[in-house]
């Protein structure tokens, strides 16, 4: 099992009720989101998100190593 830090922003943070949490997970980033989506009831489907690992954009089939910091990136609205 890998121990991961997961960061939440914007509507995902509101739905999770926290900025971040520590999660034990095996598998890729896709399976991580699906697991957390089921846990917190996130409305945003995976297709509308991007994902980042350790401060850089990542792919959904990347498998995080122990201690990785993961962030799910909802559609952005800066500017």
């Amino acid at each position, binding site marked *: 099992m890998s121990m991961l830090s997961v*960061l939440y922003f*914007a*509507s995902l943070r509101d739905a999770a009720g926290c900025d971040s949490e520590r999660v034990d997970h095996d598998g890729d980033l896709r399976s991580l989101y699906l697991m957390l989506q089921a846990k917190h009831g996130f409305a945003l489907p995976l297709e*509308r998100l991007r994902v980042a690992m350790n401060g850089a*954009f990542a792919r959904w089939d990347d498998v995080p190593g122990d201690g990785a910091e993961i962030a799910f*990136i909802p*559609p*952005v*609205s*800066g500017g």
Partner: protein
Amino acid sequence: MIPRFAIADAPFEIAPLRAHLLRAEAGAYASFEGWVRNHNEGRAALGLRYEAYVALAEAEGLKIVEEALERFEIADAACVHRVGDLDVGDLAVWVGVSAAHRDAAFAACRWIIDEVKSRVPIWKHERYAEGDAAWLHPE
């Protein structure tokens, strides 16, 4: 050394950022500013909050400005985006570009703000006159 892209958690002055782009060989300067409007998509807005994933936003924003320096014949460019609580009329984002000629200055300035809006992890939370509020996650 002023970074070419920054997330600012408080109001910032444009003048020193602009001065930093001045070059003896650059005759053209184009800039863009985004201000908080009193309405969005037909709803009266009281103000908003911008939140960023700061580490990734700064990395991605810098990448955008550096890509602009490669793509366009420009001398220099910079961008600053606010986070935190903003009122109507507050400055949300600034882009400045200097170049020898105005074609490149305008094109790069436009390209940078478009890329920032579509790629940089910043989210807008709007407060409406009716009392509700919402995160904007455009399709």
